[in-house]
């Protein structure tokens, strides 16, 4: 196989910059990771019924780098309900927000179809996402209005209210959506950069030889895809080990019929089976560079039958696909063409 390009000269078929776009979907995830590294401010309040309990003062920061998010959870007994007043006070003790959380916690056992287990559900928390307008110190005042059991009777327990404050929280669903959407656009970009050429030709036949004549050549490389499949002529499993290699021959001739390339190589044969069916297949990708546009004939040849350990594998189909004008992200081995005047050139 020949080199992808001349030494010291950049291969014009190489196109690297679209690969850099793969970094883009990672940016929202990086922001999410950095946000997750923020250590939250913890708040703990033990609230007896009827008493107003103040939290430790905390700072709500205003700015463009994320926003404050305050989450509170009341730890209440199983099968109980709670009514909790929460007031946000500014640095002067003035009420800036006042709300009531109606929460509950329920649990029990279930049995169905001979199986059993326990269940628990709760809604005893709240989360506030807001901007304070300007950075300042704030405080929470929490008051327990009711803590009732399932029958509506008051429970004498104090309630522990735990809080966590992030001053730089971000919109997680928006970041994940952005990452997915960006990845989709990048995939389209990569497909447009590396997957689409000037032309594509396909020939599929039930013999060991397939050929295509077409107008190809110019910037980029020509990719030759060869795909073939052999099967046993009967439904019985193979008697022995299938062959592991097969010879593939690619011949290229120009518009005048002069041979420009005859390349022969051994390719790996893959044995597959499903639901009692057995088959052998090969897949090979070869690359050519045709600087001058013109009419070329591409002929690929594989064995009509493969014999091994008493089995005769007959070819089922052979597919030859040509894609012209492709750019690649990495150098690919390119088969050298003989000059037209030299006539024949074995690789």
């Amino acid at each position, binding site marked *: 196989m020949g080199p992808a390009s001349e030494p010291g000269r950049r291969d014009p078929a190489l196109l690297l910059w679209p690969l850099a776009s793969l970094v883009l979907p990672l940016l929202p995830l990086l922001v999410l990771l950095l946000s997750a590294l923020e250590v939250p401010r913890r708040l703990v309040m033990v609230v007896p019924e009827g008493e107003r309990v103040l939290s430790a003062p905390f700072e709500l920061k205003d700015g463009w780098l994320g*926003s404050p998010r305050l989450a509170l959870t009341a730890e209440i007994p199983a099968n*109980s309900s709670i009514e909790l007043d929460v007031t946000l006070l500014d640095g002067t003790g003035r009420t800036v927000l006042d709300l009531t959380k109606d929460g509950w916690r329920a649990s029990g056992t279930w049995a169905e179809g001979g199986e059993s287990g326990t269940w628990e559900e709760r809604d005893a928390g709240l989360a506030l996402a807001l901007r304070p307008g300007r950075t300042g110190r704030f405080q929470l005042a929490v008051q327990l209005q009711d803590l009732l059991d399932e029958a509506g009777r008051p429970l004498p327990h104090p309630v522990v209210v735990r809080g966590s404050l992030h001053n730089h929280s971000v919109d997680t669903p928006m970041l994940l959506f952005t990452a997915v959407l*960006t990845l989709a656009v990048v995939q389209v970009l990569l497909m447009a950069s590396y997957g689409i050429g000037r032309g594509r030709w396909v020939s599929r036949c039930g013999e060991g030889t397939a050929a295509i004549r077409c107008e190809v050549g110019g910037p980029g490389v020509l990719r030759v895809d060869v795909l073939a499949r052999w099967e046993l002529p009967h439904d019985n499993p193979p008697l022995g080990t299938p062959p592991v290699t097969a010879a593939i021959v690619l011949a290229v001739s120009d518009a005048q019929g002069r041979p420009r390339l005859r390349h022969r190589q051994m390719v790996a044969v893959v044995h597959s089976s499903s639901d009692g069916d057995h088959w052998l297949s090969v897949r090979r990708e070869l690359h050519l560079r045709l600087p001058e546009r013109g009419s070329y004939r591409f002929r690929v040849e594989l064995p009509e039958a493969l014999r091994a350990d008493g089995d005769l594998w007959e070819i089922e189909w052979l597919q030859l696909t040509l894609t012209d004008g492709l750019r690649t992200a990495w150098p690919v081995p390119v088969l050298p063409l003989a000059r037209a005047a030299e006539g024949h050139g074995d690789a």
Partner: protein
Amino acid sequence: MPDERALLLLLAVTVVAAGTITAVTRPGLWRLGQDGTPAAGSGVRYGGSYRAGRWVPATPRRQDWAGFQGRGPGAAK
């Protein structure tokens, strides 16, 4: 084809920039003093709301609610 590729790259950069900046700066987030109240999830009743930059307590102060609202084992398995 180069024009399409450049356009797609521009589109990808625009999507990632717009989505990330919006997720970080959150321009639609409620601000203290803004009319109304912030979103706070289920079971939350505000005791007032902001009007013209001032916190105005609601009347009556408390509403009735049904108390215990566990949904039972049928919804929890």
